[in-house]
């Protein structure tokens, strides 16, 4: 019987977070082994690598980092005639605002990740793997290095793992505080010791041309942990969790204006927004009402809590769906015009001004744009300048239109998805809260200069000497 210092909600289904907040649990390998740890690796080493990939494909597992791409399919993109070394990279850059799940895995259950990684390395034929840990997790880097060392001592990592003839080394690589390193090709550049400017796809799909131009599989922490459970349960059995096309469990992190924020591991698609926000998170704060929700990390498009969506089913039939009835899966959120992303749910109540929310996010993206592509580098900064004006009360109604047009000039025009990540919040907030934003503006502000330089220029043009 497992007891927890912070007991999971009865609606949760704990697989990945089984050991998070578990009483008597620590990060040592002995603790992990006593709990049956590394048995799934032993099982996997007795299988054919292609059969492991087959199980992962059968499981229907979709990447938990943000894009929701099928993990097993990603693995099969390694060119079949490949003769170069293959690398596996665990993406532990967890930097999408609103996301806080990998933090608990790497701080509390490092061996689960290592076991999942070694199985995955064996499946794809990688002999060297890196865990790219964001710089802001200094303790996690230490915990992981210690865990790898202990796993090597017990021969779960290193030469001839458990007598299988398979060699694998895992190293921890720390980032240095840049959001763009969560983008897989930016991460690879960073791991090569460079500025993390993302590479253009095609041709640089990591599975074909990744680290050192060799085939490289980049998977999120949570996705790699799921691999271990897929091997234990079998792909078909795992696929019974969740709903079709949206299988397994996933960790949802709720933050912002709810009574009880936190992390919840749920079966994908088995809970609705209403159940998540009211049952698991205790509803809105006293005297408040829910206003808007960002459902999958700050880059996903915001949804109004009073919205009704018209969505098409797989058979082409149309139905309407209220926001609160949206099931928490990948496909329905996409049909509603947003995405499940990284599982980071940010909730705002009626005390929040959307201009302030927008400006906070614009500041984030202006700071984190890597600067490689002009539309994103310039656009993210201009979007921040305009939203600065809105929150300062210096904006005119046309500023809202300009802001919107800047956003639409970024997305689809950049090397990586940061372009979409930075412009979607602006596009969605304006589309859904246009009246509120315009109400904060004043047509008279169109006449005002925006800075000292333009004030001087106007004086000059008006014929007044400076």
């Amino acid at each position: 019987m497992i007891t927890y210092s912070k007991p999971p909600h009865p609606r949760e289904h704990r697989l990945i977070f089984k050991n998070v907040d578990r009483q008597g649990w620590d990060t040592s390998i002995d603790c992990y082994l006593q709990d049956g740890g590394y048995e799934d690796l032993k099982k996997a080493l007795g299988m054919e690598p292609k059969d492991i990939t087959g199980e992962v494909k059968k499981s229907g597992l979709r990447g938990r980092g943000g894009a929701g791409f099928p993990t097993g399919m990603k693995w099969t993109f390694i060119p079949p005639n490949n003769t170069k070394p293959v690398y596996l990279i665990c993406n532990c850059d967890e930097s999408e605002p609103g996301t806080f799940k990998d933090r608990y895995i790497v701080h509390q259950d490092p061996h689960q990740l290592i076991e999942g990684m070694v199985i995955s390395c064996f499946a794809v034929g990688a002999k060297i793997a890196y865990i790219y840990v964001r710089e802001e997790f200094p303790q996690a880097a230490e915990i992981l290095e210690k865990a790898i060392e202990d796993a090597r001592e017990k021969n779960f990592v290193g030469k001839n793992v458990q007598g299988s003839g398979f060699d694998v080394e895992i190293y921890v690589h720390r980032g240095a505080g840049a959001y763009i390193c969560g983008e897989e090709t930016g991460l690879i550049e960073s791991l090569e010791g460079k500025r993390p400017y993302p590479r253009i796809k095609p041709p640089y799909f990591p599975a074909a041309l990744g680290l050192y131009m060799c085939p490289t599989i980049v998977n999120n922490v949570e996705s790699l942990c799921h691999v271990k459970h897929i091997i234990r349960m079998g792909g078909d059995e795992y696929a019974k969790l969740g709903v079709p096309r949206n299988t397994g469990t996933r960790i949802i992190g709720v933050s912002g204006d709810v009574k009880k924020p936190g992390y919840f591991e749920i079966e994908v698609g088995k809970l609705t927004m209403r159940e998540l926000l009211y049952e698991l998170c205790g509803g809105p704060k006293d005297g408040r009402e829910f206003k808007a929700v960002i459902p999958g990390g700050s880059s996903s498009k915001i949804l109004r809590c009073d919205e009704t969506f018209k969505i098409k089913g797989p058979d082409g039939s149309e139905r309407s769906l209220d926001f609160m009835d949206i099931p928490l899966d990948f496909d329905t959120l996409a049909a509603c015009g947003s995405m499940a992303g990284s599982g980071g749910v940010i909730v705002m109540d009626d005390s929040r001004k959307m201009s302030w929310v927008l400006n906070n996010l614009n500041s984030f993206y202006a700071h984190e744009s890597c600067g490689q592509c002009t539309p994103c580098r310039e656009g993210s900064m201009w979007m921040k300048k305009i939203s600065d004006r809105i929150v300062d009360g210096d904006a005119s109604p046309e500023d809202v239109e300009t802001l919107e047009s800047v956003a639409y000039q970024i997305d689809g025009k950049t090397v990586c998805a940061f372009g979409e990540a930075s412009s979607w919040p602006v596009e969605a907030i304006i589309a859904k809260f246009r009246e509120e934003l315009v109400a904060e503006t004043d047509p008279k502000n169109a006449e005002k200069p925006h800075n000292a330089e333009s004030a001087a220029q106007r004086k000059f043009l008006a014929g007044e000497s400076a």
Partner: protein
Amino acid sequence: MSVSPLQDSIASHETPGTKFFPPFEMTPELEAEIDERITHYPDSKRSATLPLLHIIQHKFGYLSAKSIEWVAKKLELEPIKVLEVVTFYPGFRQSAPGKFHIRVCRTLSCAMGGSGELMDRICELTGIDRSQSDSHHHPIAVSPCGRFSVEFAECLASCGTAPVCLVNDDFHEGVTAEKAEELLGKYKEEN
């Protein structure tokens, strides 16, 4: 002593925190640690750029022109290849922070939880003036005594326990402005 040719290219200046960090000097122990770290990248030494910079910054507080040149030489790179890494990543510094560097999360969930107020309170208690700071070029502000410095960080990935901050390598959660004094107290007595 020779003047480093990189000296003019880096944004290094004296801060009240400088006195808490030793000047850059390579020792056999440190070089052994660095050599071991380089073995983690058997296919390309250049990959060790970030880890080496971390090891040096951790010990000397910031990355001086000399240390950047040392890393370049060690990895057989042109110094610009290291400098461009240092200037890109927010996690690398060219001047000394305070003895205790506080990074307060600025992003949405923490901002909703009051991280702006937390930053203001920390500055009030430590006498830090952030008026000359900006997020891109001068993110760090140091207290007059040099013991503390502050910087806004982007999402520290603990949105459910907002507001949060890092003090050197220690993570603190649920730090509302009312708890700022208690937080600083943990570091005031420590020498």
